[in-house]
């Protein structure tokens, strides 16, 4: 999984991470028509076709959130050994 390129400072950066593979789930799931192309079981009146596909939205949110959390870069590159508070900066807006 190591990035082969070794560019000059500040150390070679990369977006690679095993966590990224989780993103495959919400891409593949909605394409498997046979698993949701049914009326039964109904949920609160919704045929399976509708409630299951709406549920996939939450699968998408969960996986992208997880991947973001696990791969978030510290606010400054690793080598600058910033104080421990660095990752918290990402949640502040404006």
């Amino acid at each position, binding site marked *: 999984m190591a990035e082969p390129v070794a560019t000059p400072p500040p150390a070679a*950066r990369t977006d690679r991470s095993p966590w990224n593979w989780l993103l495959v789930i919400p891409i593949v799931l*909605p*394409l498997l*028509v046979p698993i949701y192309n049914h*009326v039964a079981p109904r949920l609160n009146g919704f045929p399976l*076709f509708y409630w299951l*596909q709406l549920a996939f939205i939450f699968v*998408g949110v969960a996986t992208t959130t997880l991947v*973001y959390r696990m791969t978030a870069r510290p606010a400054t590159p690793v080598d600058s050994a910033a104080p421990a508070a660095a990752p918290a900066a990402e949640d502040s807006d404006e």
Partner: protein
Amino acid sequence: MSDHITEIIVFAVLFLLVSGMGFVAARWRAPKDMAHLDEWGLGGRSFGGWITWFLIGGDLYTAYTFVAVPALIFGAGAAGFFAVPYTVVIYPMFFLVLIRLWSVSHRHGFVTPADFVRTRFGSPTLALLVAITGIVATMPYIALQLIGIESVLKTMGVTGDSMIARHLPIIIAFAILAAYTYQSGLRAPALIAFVKDTLIYIVIIVAVLYLPYKLGGWGSIFDAADKKFQASAAPGDGIILNANNQVQYITLAVGSALALFLYPHSITGILASKNRNVIKRNMSALPAYSLLLGLIALLGYMAISAGVKPLPGTKVGSLDSNTVVPLLFDQQFPSWFAGVAFAAIGIGALVPAAIMSIAAANLFTRNIYKEYIKPDATNAQEASVSKIASLVVKLGAVAFIVFLDPQFSIDLQLIGGVVILQTGPAVALGLYTRWMHRGALIAGWAAGMALALWMLWDIPNAATKRAHFGGSAFPLKDFGFDTPKTIYVGFVAVAVNLLVAVIVTVILRAAKTPDGIDGTTPDDYFADEGDARLEKSRVTPAAVTSST
């Protein structure tokens, strides 16, 4: 008209309020110098998570979508629900792609996808093709936003019968939009998006709680739809998919997802954000709009259950199914609330229309004007050319609606989605690999375009009795397969595009054809806020821009 008076007043008040905001937006987060494309066209490249969420949400989920998707569900049932898988797969698919695009654009000051292609492949010609494809795909999309507004105005009865009376309200609305976009640039839709989306969320939450209660519950809504489709003669409809439209369903979902982030206006929204984390977080936050869209789609079934009859279309005997949702609100809610819903749709059209016109204007300025007309244009000149171009683009969109059959805009938008996909190999794959030859990308683009146009031309539509451009579902039997199944045109065309690009690359490499210079370095694709920019200096010297 008088029975709609409350709706009209509520609509007009909200519309004017938002227009005022559009003008004030120029002073919101005001820059030192507005005469720069980064400011006018990208809002200073400084938007944080919340603004980006509203902006991109308002940009991707347009008023036309909110009107057309339920109309499709109303008419065809389950097939129209493709909008949900479409907007589920799109975010994980682009999660890693868009941050690379953002980084390289941040480093090099790119404003458009064509800027990237030019520097990456050293080919102004390929960049020009990407720019023209973008403009051609965007224009009818803007026109469709007008159709969204018109469906609301029609329901309120404010459109007359003569050509002028029918279009006057739209022309006024667009003139106001054009004026504040000219003045405030991307800041206008960014600020308005807050109001628009707040209204939409309120309206839809109320609608999906109240309407099922009023119509006897979700179960009976779906049952009513099922009954309608059982009774209809059309073979493709129903509340679930049948054996023949499943391939179309998923290829349309994937193809549309691939296309959406290739549209110039989506990329404008992405490039306006201030860093990579804003984009990544939005990939998990934007699906809130997908849920909204899924619920809006089901308004189509509620309309069936409530017995809504669409208003007549422009041609005698035709029906305008886009009026289904406005009519549902008109019939089921008190008129003041219907007015709010109509305003949400009307304002909802302004946000994407503004961003689209800005994106198209930027393409013209950067990849046609600066490239071919005035290479030494200053930043201020770029900004003023873009401002004027945005007016021309909107004028063009209004002309589409006033002088041509609206069906023509719908056809063009359908074509637009398919043609914008043809820029994918250069723009999206180009972010990952420089392996493909610029000449091969041009060849692939041409092959994909030609095939796409032929396929779309070949598709008839039984319901509207049209022999050509009847939809995007291509019957596989026309390829010689013995099957009634259909497939999404864009999917096939982009696959052929890629195949041609690969084959021609191998040939051109074997023939040692010059390949141009890659103006980017691997580290550019990981740059983040705080990393130095290569300010405005063209990385590729003019001398290396050869004929390709």
